[in-house]
């Protein structure tokens, strides 16, 4: 297995899970009944986002930066018993489907040019 000694050499998954997320582009958005549409100013492209991806974008917009913070905001109305539990799930149980979904949502936002992660 490859060894990573420097932050910039960390594999992308590690950065996604442990890095600090932030918005990376200007965008306009609308939400109807949990479905989002977003227009990315930098590319002038418009996308429809799933509820999870849209809520993740909103969490980033509201200042959540780390996966556990984002999970707390995104999953607070979901099946997790309380936000603290959701945060724990996000931090420690990487195989948990919710965490994987959240990471996938973040990856989608990154691919669209809306979010970026970096190790601090």
């Amino acid at each position, binding site marked *: 297995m490859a060894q990573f000694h420097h932050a910039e050499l960390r594999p992308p998954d590690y950065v996604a899970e442990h890095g600090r997320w932030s918005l990376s582009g200007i965008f*306009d958005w*609308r939400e*109807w*009944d949990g*479905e989002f*549409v977003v227009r990315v100013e930098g590319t*002038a492209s*418009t996308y429809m986002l799933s509820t999870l991806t849209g809520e993740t974008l909103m969490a980033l917009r509201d200042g959540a930066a780390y996966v556990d913070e984002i999970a707390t905001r995104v999953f607070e109305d979901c099946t997790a018993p309380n936000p603290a539990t959701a945060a724990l799930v996000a931090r420690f149980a990487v195989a948990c489907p919710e965490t994987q979904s959240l990471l996938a949502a973040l990856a989608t936002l990154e691919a669209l040019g809306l979010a970026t992660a970096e190790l601090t």
Partner: protein
Amino acid sequence: MIVGDLGPQALDHCLRHGGLQIRTGPIATNVRTSIAAVRRGISLHYAQHEAEVTTGFADFHVSVERPQNYRRWIDRQVVFRFDGSQPFAPLPGDQGFPMLEWGLNWCVSSHCHQYLIVHAAVLERDGRALILPAPSGSGKSTLCAGLAYGGGWRLLSDELALIEPATCQLVALPRPISLKNDSIDVVQQFAPSAVFGDVVHETVKGRVAHVRPPAEAVLRASRPAPPAWVVLPRFAAGVAARMEPLSRARAFMALVDNAFNYGVLGRRGFNAIGELIDRCDCHEFTYSNLHEAVAMFDRLARSEQWLPT
């Protein structure tokens, strides 16, 4: 004055010498042609439209003529010219009127960026506009003709929805309804009172005929209408008419996908579609029988809050 006020000889003279300006909704177009079939089409389809005999300012100056090169003797063709340029390849000689219509669509969709322009039919009833965005071949124009000629809806446009970005009002552009292939027979049977022009065969779209816009639609062309419904139509052979709710986000994307100048308008386009969607009920509609379809839209218009059955 309207085009119909000109007798055949006066109309021929104006069109030959480039002095006929036809107003379609907010757009004034100076038209020139010496081709009899095109003149006949203008006389039939634009009879109720305001016109002016002038060479003065017009939004577009267009012509449909024979080519000026050797082809005029070898092969009967027609060319469309716009402000002196020739944006399209020539077409066979009997396709002059369809070419004029397609060329006018191109003029509007490529230049009228004061509007958000969507490939959609637009009709109005009781002061509420119905927007039918759809790609070619979806049954949009057939449905539009049925609603305009048999459903009590006012035609605003068969092909281009002009949306005023600041107000989301739908601006009328009543021009001939373009029908293709089997749709021609369907509408002829459904609406015997509809006035058809020449049927033109073997175009790139197959057999094509235009239906004259109802006179009432032309007379009320200066009245915009606020949006109330976005319905995505789809023809599917053999199915019962079915209206199903469509999420607003999906309706939004359908409008984006069918817009001609969404990218040109940038944020204004996004906001305009968002505001429009806020004001609309959105549905998907599948049909195969025009009578069933028109009846279902009648129920839609009568209901405050549409509930599919």
